[in-house]
C-alpha cells in the first residue's frame, strides 16, 4: 500500500503541494490528473525520493521514504517517464540490464528476465540491440517499461507514459498496459493529463489543482457528484463521452 499523508512541499515562493493525502491499495491502479503545474509530478518525485516533503510523510508498505531508506525502497519501485527516459548511450538491452548488472545478476538470469518481459511487452526481438534514437516512440516506451519491471518491483510509477505517442500506438499500448497491470497485480500510480486515459487505467482518479487534490473517485463519481465547478469544467473540456468506460476491478 502506498500512503501519502498530509504532504506539503514548497519550492521557493511556489507551493507545489498543499496538504495532499492519497492512498493506493496494493494491486490497485490510481491516476493523478490535472493541468500542468497542478503538483501531480511533484507527488511522484516525493514517492521516488527525488524531493522530500516539507511536512507530512510518504510511506510504502508501511516504510517511510527517507534519505536513509530511499535507496533500498527504490529497488522496489519501477519508474517510467515520457519517452521512457532511456539512456541514449545504451542499447535497449543495455538499458534494461543496467540495474540487474549493477546488482550482480549473472548474464543468463538477466537474459532470461529480459526475454520474459520482452514477450510480455510484445517488443520485437531485434529491437533489443537498437539504440534509443533508432527506435519508435512506442518501442522506447515499451523498453522503458521493461527496464522498470526488470527487478519485479511492487510499485510502478508512470509519469505521462503515453504523452508523446501517436493515437494508434497510444491506444495499443494502453490496452497492453492495462492487461499487464492486472496480470502482474502491481500497485500502480499513473500521472496523466488525459481524462480518458485516466478513466481507462484507474481504479480511481484524483483530480489535482494548484497543489491540492480536489476530488478522488471513479469517473462516474466525478461526473455524477463533482466536488466543485472546476471538476465539471475539467470533465467537459475532455469529452468524457468518447472515453471508454472504466472497468471496475474491485
Amino acid at each position, binding site marked *: 500500500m502506498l500512503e501519502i499523508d498530509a504532504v506539503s512541499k514548497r519550492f521557493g515562493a511556489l507551493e507545489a503541494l498543499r496538504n495532499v493525502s492519497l492512498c493506493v491499495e496494493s494491486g490497485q491502479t490510481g491516476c493523478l490528473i490535472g493541468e500542468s503545474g497542478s503538483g501531480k509530478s511533484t507527488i511522484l*518525485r516525493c514517492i*521516488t*525520493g*527525488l524531493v522530500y516533503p516539507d511536512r507530512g510523510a510518504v510511506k510504502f508498505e508501511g516504510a517511510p521514504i527517507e534519505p536513509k531508506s530511499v*535507496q533500498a525502497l*527504490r*529497488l522496489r*519501485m519501477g*519508474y517510467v*517517464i*515520457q519517452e521512457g*527516459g532511456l*539512456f*541514449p*548511450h*545504451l*542499447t535497449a538491452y543495455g538499458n534494461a540490464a*543496467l*540495474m540487474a548488472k*549493477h546488482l550482480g545478476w549473472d548474464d543468463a538470469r538477466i537474459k532470461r528476465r529480459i526475454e520474459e518481459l520482452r514477450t510480455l511487452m510484445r517488443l520485437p526481438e531485434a529491437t533489443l540491440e537498437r*539504440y*534509443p*534514437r533508432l527506435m519508435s516512440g512506442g518501442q522506447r516506451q515499451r523498453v522503458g517499461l521493461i*527496464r522498470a519491471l526488470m527487478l519485479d518491483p511492487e510499485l510502478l510509477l508512470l509519469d505521462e507514459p503515453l504523452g508523446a505517442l501517436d493515437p494508434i500506438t497510444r491506444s495499443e499500448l494502453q490496452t497492453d498496459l492495462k492487461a499487464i497491470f492486472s496480470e502482474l497485480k502491481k500497485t500502480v500510480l499513473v500521472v496523466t493529463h488525459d481524462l480518458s486515459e485516466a478513466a481507462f487505467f484507474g481504479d480511481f482518479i484524483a483530480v489535482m489543482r494548484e497543489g491540492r487534490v480536489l476530488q478522488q473517485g471513479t469517473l462516474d463519481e466525478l461526473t455524477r457528484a463533482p466536488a466543485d465547478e472546476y471538476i465539471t469544467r475539467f470533465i467537459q473540456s475532455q469529452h468524457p463521452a468518447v472515453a471508454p468506460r472504466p472497468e471496475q476491478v474491485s
Partner: protein
Amino acid sequence: MKRLFVCALLCGVLTSCSRTRAPEARIGSKKFTESVLLGEIARVLAEQTGAKVEHRREIGGSRVLWDALRGDEIDCYPEYSGTLLKEILGGAQPKNPAELDALLAKHGVRAGKPLGFDNTYAIGMQEPKAAALNLHTISDLAKHRELRFGMTSEFMDRADGWPGLARRYGLQPKEVRGLEHDLAYRALAQGTLDVTDLYSTDADIEYYKLRVLDDDLHYFPEYQALFLYREKFVQDHPDIHEAIERLAGKLDAVSMRKLNADVKLRTRPEATVAAEFARRAFGAHTTVREPTRLERLVQRTVEHVGLTAWSLLAAILVAVPLGIAAARRRGLAQVILAVSSVLQTIPSLALLVFMIPLFGIGEAPAIAALFLYSLLPIVRNTHSGLTGIDRGLLESAEVLGLPAGARLRLIELPLASPSILAGIKTAAVINVGTATLGALIGAGGYGQPILTGIRLNDQGLILEGAIPAALLALCCQWAFDFAERYIVPRGLR
C-alpha cells in the same frame, strides 16, 4: 580513456629514455649568437679534461640564466660585467674586485676573469639616414622625436637599458617598441625602424653598414665578457673550471666579431666555428658532429611530444575531476571556472617565466605552464558536458536505484564523453602550438629551430620547426577523431 593514457605514458617513457648519464658540467648560454659561441668554446675546453659536458644552448635572457645558475640548473654561463652590476646585482658599485667577489659569494656564485673583449651596448642607425640628419652622438637624437626607435625586448626593461638611457639623454621619441634583437637589424635595413640598440661585437654592424652613435654622456658601463660559475661547481671540479678559464684574456673584440660574423653572415654552425677557434687558440681537439636534419627532427619531435603529452596527461587527471566537482556544486563551479579562465588569460610567455622560480629551467616549467593552459578547456567541457545532461535521464538513473558513484561511471561520464573529449582535443591542439614557446626557457622541442632560425635569419631552420609543429597539431586532431570511435559510446555518435 585507457588507450589515451597508455599513449601518453609511452611518449613519456620515450622522452625519459633519451636522457643518459648526468653530465659533470652544464654550461648555459643566452639566446644570441655570441653567447652560444662562448658556451660552445667553453664546452670544447671543458671536454679537454675528459669530463662529460652538456651545453644547454639558448636558454633565455640574463635573468633566466642567472636564476638557473643559482638554482643549480647549470654550472656556468657567459655574462657581461655591466649586466652583472646594473641588471643582476641591482646597481651595486663594488670598489674593487674583492668586494665584487664578496657580493657574488652571497649568491653562491664566482666570477671568472675577463675574456678580453668589451661588448657594450651601443645605439645605431643606418648610415645614410644618420648622415642626412647629421647625427653623430646619442645626444643628437633628442632633437628628432620623429625617429622610430625599436629596442631589444630585454633592453626595454633593463635597469641599464632604455629607461635609464632615455632619462640620461632626455630622449622622448614618439614611437618606441620592443622586438627581438636579430629582427631589429632586419627592420633597420628595411627602413621600418630608424634607431636600435646594438651589441658592439655584433657582426651585423659591419654587414648592414650601421653608424654607431657616440655615447657622449657615458651612459653605458663596461660590458667585459666573463664566465660566471656556481661556487660549489668550482670546488667540486677545479680542473673543469681551470680549463674554461684558459679562455680568460684570450679573446679580443676583433676575434669575437669575426667569430660572430662566421656564424651570422656566413651561416656556419656555432659548434664548428667554436671548435676551429679552440683548435687555433688552444690546440684543443674535439670532434664536431652536427646532427643531421633527420636526427634533429627526431630529437625535437621526442621533446615536443613529451612536453605536450605529459602536460596533457596531468591536465586530464586534474581537470576531469575538477570539472566533475564543478558540475556537482554550483558555488564551486564559479570558483573553479573563474580560476581556470584567469590562468588562460596569462600570456603564455609570462606563464613560462613564472614557472622558472618554481621548477627551474628546461622541460619541467614548460610542462607546468602547458598543464595550466590545458586545464580550462577540459574543466569547462567536463562541466558543461555533465550539466548539459537531460534532467529526466539523471532522475531516471537515480530512481533506478544506482548509487552516485555508479551513476557517474555508467551514465553521466559516458553521456558527457563527447564534450569532455572535445575539450581534451582543444587542449592538445593548443598545447602543441604553445609548446613551441618552451624553447625560450630551455625546454627544446620544435620551438628551438624556430628560435635559432629567427636569430640566424634562416628561413629553412624556422620552417624546420614550424612545419612539424603544424603537422603534429593535425596528427593530434586526427588521433582524437580516431579515439572518439573507441571512447564515445556508439549510441551517441
